[in-house]
């Protein structure tokens, strides 16, 4: 038996074992809902403080509502309902609160089946579904919206964005092209740049973005998005100063999305600028869904203050991850993979979760995560899968290149 075969068998065994361990852990964590419970001393004890978003949703729910109870929805009721959905979505966007998104989706689902929903409603629904990784259903809604309006820019853009996440670059090219045929739109340009950045034409994308940013008509919001795209492409190409400049400008222009922050934080960590990463993340780790940022934050403070990192891990991070794991099939594979890789030093679990995540989404950070875990576990098959993906797409990522070279030397 060759060394390669032995390694493959070892890898498979370790994957199987890690899967068993993961299943056991999940089962046991699902069974053991251990938390100290208590009966408050007095009726005046404040048990919980409500977030503004909850107050707003609660008021809406508990106020008398005619539209929702109408069995025969006329034009006016449907418009009222659509406005209500948009309000709920706006509230969720403003507050960034998970329950608000969940409430908006629950509301959208109340649309009576006998009426065709307007494209706007389908787009909101798609945005909400996309948020929970239900890419197939989101695509379905957007395609229905396009049936009603084939040139619907929002639907085309969102379909392109989903394709960029799932790695369906052929579809993305088509949607970007359809957008480009419409009156000049920076979003269409950004769409093309994103695609080029992921399919081996990063330098051309950067030039295009630089030219667009020089246009006098570029708004603040436009600039923010273009800088973000440029920063991530330069990051992958290893252009340190260009990446830094774009990251800084996008941040100054107010981009505080998790996507942006996690990319920027990763770049800072890769540059070993731990203090700056800590400063960047410290204001955002208390937010809902900030688990990946919490992991990067842990990574940044581990260097400056190991004791603080240990406390942060024990008191906040690990418990949150354990609870996230209880969602069984719905668990966030990417977060769990990153946690296993960075915090728990459990490469086998990281690989299992990263593989499951890669089945859903194939952004560069997903591919990198998969490769990192695979290299640590020496999973030759997965490394080969990533190598093939890179070859097929032409994806440029200096970090991935280094990993694959190291893996080849290992073999």
């Amino acid at each position, binding site marked *: 038996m060759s060394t390669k075969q032995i390694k493959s068998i070892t890898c498979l065994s370790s994957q199987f074992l890690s899967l068993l361990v993961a299943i056991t852990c999940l*089962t046991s964590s*699902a*069974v053991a*809902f251990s*938390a100290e*419970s*208590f009966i*408050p001393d*007095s*009726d*005046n*004890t*404040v*048990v*919980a403080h*409500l*977030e503004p978003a*909850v107050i707003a949703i*609660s008021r809406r*729910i508990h106020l008398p509502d005619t539209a929702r109870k109408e069995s025969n929805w006329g034009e006016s009721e449907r418009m009222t309902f659509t406005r209500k959905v948009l309000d709920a*979505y*706006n509230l969720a966007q403003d507050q960034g609160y*998970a*329950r608000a998104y*969940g*409430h908006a*989706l*629950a509301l959208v689902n109340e649309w009576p089946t006998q009426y065709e929903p307007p494209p706007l409603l389908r*787009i*909101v629904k798609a*945005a909400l579904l*996309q*948020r*929970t*990784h239900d890419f197939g259903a989101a695509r379905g809604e957007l395609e229905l919206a396009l049936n009603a309006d084939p040139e619907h820019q*929002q639907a085309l*853009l969102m379909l392109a*964005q989903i394709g960029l*996440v799932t790695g369906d670059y052929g579809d993305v090219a088509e949607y970007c092209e359809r957008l480009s045929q419409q009156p000049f*739109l920076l*979003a269409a340009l*950004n769409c093309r740049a*994103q695609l080029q950045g992921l399919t081996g034409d990063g330098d051309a994308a950067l030039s295009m973005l630089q030219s667009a940013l020089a246009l006098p008509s570029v708004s603040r*919001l436009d600039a*923010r*998005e273009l800088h973000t795209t440029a920063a991530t492409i330069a990051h992958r190409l290893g252009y340190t100063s260009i990446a830094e400049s774009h990251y800084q400008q996008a941040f100054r222009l107010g981009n505080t999305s998790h*996507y*942006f922050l996690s990319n920027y934080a990763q770049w800072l960590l890769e540059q070993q600028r731990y203090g700056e990463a800590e400063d960047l993340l410290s204001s955002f780790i208390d937010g809902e*869904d*900030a688990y*990946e940022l919490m992991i990067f934050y842990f990574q940044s403070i581990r260097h400056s203050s190991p004791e603080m990192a240990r406390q942060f891990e024990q008191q906040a991070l690990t418990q*949150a991850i354990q*609870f*996230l794991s209880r*969602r*069984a*099939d*719905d668990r966030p594979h990417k977060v769990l993979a990153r946690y296993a890789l960075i915090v728990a030093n459990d490469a086998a679990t990281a690989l299992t979760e990263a593989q499951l995540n890669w089945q859903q*989404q194939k*952004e560069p950070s997903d591919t990198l995560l998969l490769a990192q875990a695979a290299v640590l576990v020496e999973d030759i098959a997965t490394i080969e899968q990533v190598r093939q993906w890179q070859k097929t797409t032409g994806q440029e990522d200096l970090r991935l290149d280094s990993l694959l070279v190291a893996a080849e030397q290992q073999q």
Partner: protein
Amino acid sequence: MRTSTSLFLCLVWLVLPTGAYAHSLNDSYLELSVIEQSIEGVLQLAVTDLELAVGLDRNYDADITWGEIRQARADIDEYLLNRINLAIDDDACALSPGYYRVSQLPGGAYLVVDLSGHCPVSEGALVLAYSLMFDLDNSHRGVAAIHYQGSDTSHVFSPQRTVFSFDQADSVFFQTMVNFVGEGVWHIWIGIDHILFLVAMLLAVVVHRRADSAIASADLGVELLKLVTAFTVAHSITLVLATLELITLPVAVVESAIAFTVVASGVNVMYPLFGKRHWQFAFGFGLIHGFGFANVLAEIELSSTLFLSSLLGFNLGVELGQLAILLVLVPVLLLITNRNSIRRLAAPVSGLIICQLGLFWLVERSL
């Protein structure tokens, strides 16, 4: 995921969401244990979710006090009972909320509600329907851990999966069988009379090999195999018959008869009482030992639904335990009786010891 490309379109209200990060902790945690017809459980539901569901904040100050929760108790109970339903074999179980407490989880403050109840039946498929919050929050999930008649399972409820059905029969069958395999192994190992009988029977075959030309190993192996198989088949027959209560014998009679088989097999070691009919006697005496195993099994309360798996498991365990003994014993016996002198000495000494022990049990059990 890119977030706000749509801003370019001036649709200010609609921004692409941060899809890759949409994981919240607005879940509830439900533990339910169903033993026979009785239900015990605990539900943990976020106070925030209860605010949305029943409206706890009566004074609109954004703070939920313990008093406000207690005031809303009737509404909360009604809400829970309307949306958590349990049935076994299509018969609805009656659930009722008990004490309220509070816990702090990573997702915030949770109300902890004790649950108890009763089901009209205890056998059949368990169906748990859960629809808390789904109409108000599509991202809500109900994480349930269920213990049903000795079997554990779990399920995550979502708007698309509001009903969970669990037929414990299959999983419990195997789980019970595995448990009873252990019981069987344990009882053959601690059942010194059964072991001694087996040892005596094996010893007789080994020591009565012809002194001048030892029986070929293969023949000896076949002889031992026949003996063990006969014993196994025989005790399995009576174990099943007695457990099914098709034949019932007084325990004292069975135990004394087993002691007698030990005495007889001890004599057989010293003097070839059974001649070459080892397996035939093993079969006959095995029938008696089967009743003994059945007495042991009768001491363990069996649910009628798990009867077959228990019986199979127990019997399998007895065989495995027996096999383990043989694997150790046979090589040792062959080794120490390899020399004629030792064999000649081993027969009377070991036979005598076995006989004495058998007689002791016989007297003890007969009195």
